[in-house]
């Protein structure tokens, strides 16, 4: 279906993401202050945003690469070859034939319909889904929820954006948050008014827009007092990208008594560097939960964090990481207890296979003034063969003696006896392995919306295929 045909079927949307003219603007590869200024000008941004972008660019330019994580992989990133701004869906479209065959096979085997396959690969735009998105948005609007892409958010709610943008993750936080602030485009802007509970997980939106979001999306969610929202990002299906750097920033603000849950499953293709900064601030009695799954990418460095700023606030980070051949998932969590009676829980599970490498990197701090904090950290690693690797880098800095800390870590292997037991029940060796692996991930999977959980289980079963010698 061509764009025009699609438009005939479903009509035109004011809220649509696509340029009516289908204009194609693609910047030359490489980054400079001028490119940053051009991006901002093209978007007609207010001056403060332009200046923030420029300051961020300068910081990015001066800041050295991180000296931890996977330094040799980081050194391979060629910033000059990356295109920092694309506009119009046309520009992102690929030829279906260019989508690697293994990804096409995975789509088929996950049972993803043909149209959605092409859309996920960026080959076509999905007008039908946009209609779905539109009705979801109308529903939310009735409750006073603002739910826009970040660019529209800035245009339509400048004061809110100005107040909170970069308030949780300053551009100077790290090299990649600086890069994102300099060149961000797309992402979500959400404001949930006081006392409003968004009942359904907000998810269709991102499945629709994952492709358009591009590599440098910027998301800001503000949950006002006593409100709640569950936001779901990403895709269990492989997300094919010809661009090799994905560097997002997500900022969450949970005002007193608010509850934000942010769930992610990323399955970037194996050429992608996924270097993401995610952080939330929890005010008094607020609750922030990150449910974070990392299946794809070449290198992921991501440590969802929560600053427990208000008394009685609570943080939870539940994450899983799967590292196959050539992959390194350096993931974990950071939680800072700044106020009294705050509680936190980290559960991290990683699987490495075929030479893949999984690292848990965690930091939990309790400030001297924070009384009676409770923190619990559990990291479990499952290593499927001799060539694979798992490391744990946990840090706990507890400056108040009233804190109660628990930390457990385990590394396990799949035992022959476990496999034999499952095989004696009629399951082939690959099926048995998939049962064990999906069981290992179950504490994570059960937190996901059903369709994501089902897809993730199927995906892991596919990953276990061909793994038996």
């Amino acid at each position, binding site marked *: 279906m061509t764009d025009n045909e699609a438009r005939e079927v479903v009509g035109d949307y004011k809220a649509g993401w696509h340029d009516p003219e289908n204009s194609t603007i693609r910047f030359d590869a490489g980054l400079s202050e001028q490119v940053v200024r051009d991006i901002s000008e093209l978007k007609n941004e207010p001056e403060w945003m332009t200046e923030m972008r420029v300051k961020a660019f300068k910081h990015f330019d001066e800041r050295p690469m991180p000296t931890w994580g996977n330094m040799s992989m980081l050194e391979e990133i060629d910033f000059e070859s990356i295109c920092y701004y694309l506009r119009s869906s046309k520009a992102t479209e690929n030829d279906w034939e260019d989508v690697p065959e293994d990804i096409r096979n995975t789509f088929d085997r996950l049972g993803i319909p043909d149209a959605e396959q092409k859309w996920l690969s960026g080959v076509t735009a999905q007008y039908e889904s946009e209609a779905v998105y539109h009705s979801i948005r109308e529903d939310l609007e009735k409750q006073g929820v603002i739910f826009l892409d970040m660019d529209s958010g800035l245009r339509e709610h400048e004061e809110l954006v100005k107040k909170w943008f970069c308030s949780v993750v300053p551009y100077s936080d790290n090299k990649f948050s600086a890069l994102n602030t300099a060149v961000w485009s797309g992402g979500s802007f959400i404001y949930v008014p006081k006392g409003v509970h968004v009942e359904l997980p907000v998810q269709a939106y991102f499945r629709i827009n994952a492709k358009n979001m591009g590599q440098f999306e910027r998301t800001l969610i503000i949950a006002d007092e006593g409100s709640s929202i569950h936001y779901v990002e990403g895709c269990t299906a492989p997300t094919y990208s010809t661009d090799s750097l994905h560097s997002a920033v997500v900022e969450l603000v949970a005002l007193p008594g608010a509850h934000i849950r942010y769930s992610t499953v990323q399955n970037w293709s194996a050429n992608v560097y996924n270097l993401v900064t995610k952080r939330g601030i929890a005010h008094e009695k607020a609750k922030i939960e990150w449910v974070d799954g990392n299946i794809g990418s070449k290198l992921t460095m991501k440590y969802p964090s929560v600053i427990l700023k208000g008394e009685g606030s609570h943080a939870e980070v539940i994450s899983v990481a799967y590292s196959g051949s050539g992959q390194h998932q350096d993931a974990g969590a950071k939680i800072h207890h700044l106020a009294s009676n705050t509680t936190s829980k980290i559960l991290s599970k990683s699987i490495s296979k075929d030479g893949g490498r999984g690292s848990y990197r965690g930091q939990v701090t309790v400030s001297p003034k924070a009384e009676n904090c409770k923190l619990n950290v559990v990291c479990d690693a499952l290593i499927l063969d001799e060539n694979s690797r798992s490391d744990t880098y946990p840090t706990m800095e507890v400056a108040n003696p009233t804190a109660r800390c628990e930390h457990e870590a385990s590394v396990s292997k799949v035992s022959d006896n476990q496999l034999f037991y499952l095989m004696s*029940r009629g399951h082939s*060796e690959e099926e048995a392995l998939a049962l064990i692996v999906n069981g290992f991930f179950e504490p994570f999977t059960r937190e996901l919306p059903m369709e994501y959980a089902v897809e993730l289980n199927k995906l892991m079963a596919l990953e276990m295929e061909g793994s038996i010698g």
Partner: protein
Amino acid sequence: MSNDSELLKIQDLYACIDDTSILKGINLEIKPGEIHAIMGRNGSGKTTTANIIMGHPDYEVESGTVELNGKDLLEMETWERAREGVFLSFQYPQAVPGLQVGNFLRKSVAATLGEEAAKGKEFRNKLKESMKELDIPSSFLGRYVNDGFSGGEKKRFEILQLMLMKPKLAILDETDSGLDIDGIRTVAKGINAAIRGTESGALIITHYSRILEHVKPDKIHVLISGKIVKTGGPDLALELEEKGYDWLEGKSES
């Protein structure tokens, strides 16, 4: 069906683990509907026999044959044997954290008896009925396979699988060990329900005669140092209870 309707036929089976020879010429035949027992001390080769029939990778068969309804089991992978109708109730069932009992039962029935058998009302009724028979509460279905189960729960769960998977040949490896009298009575009820009155057969491996009071075997074989040294009827269990195994040392029936 070849081999004169033998359900299980083991001939001259020699097997070892890590170059230590354990089975030294086992011969055993079970007909459809029969329940046999193998008794013997620790280390006599009882569990090895069970593991070899199921295909445990640690054991090496040196010579001999094992056939189910005339089909060569030794040529098959473990899961193919299971799909062919062999079931092993483990002495030490393995935990699979995160795998829910209900899900596992459905998947295992589907793997062995086909997708249709694991669907619909009939399956659910059979599940409910079997759980009731084994005094297993319905909350059990939401737990993780053998994860944090007590010894008794593990054994009852093995028998629940037996009842649902309806194998042609059930091997019960020390199912009675670690159970109290009530526990033994309960699992025995399950074994009888699964085997008696069907064309299936069972091989019960045990130290003690207690379980055999509740599941009357058709034949009892005594295994000493990798060989069956005596075969008899149900009364042999009582004799062993009284006299121990010493009097059979050095004997060989074959």
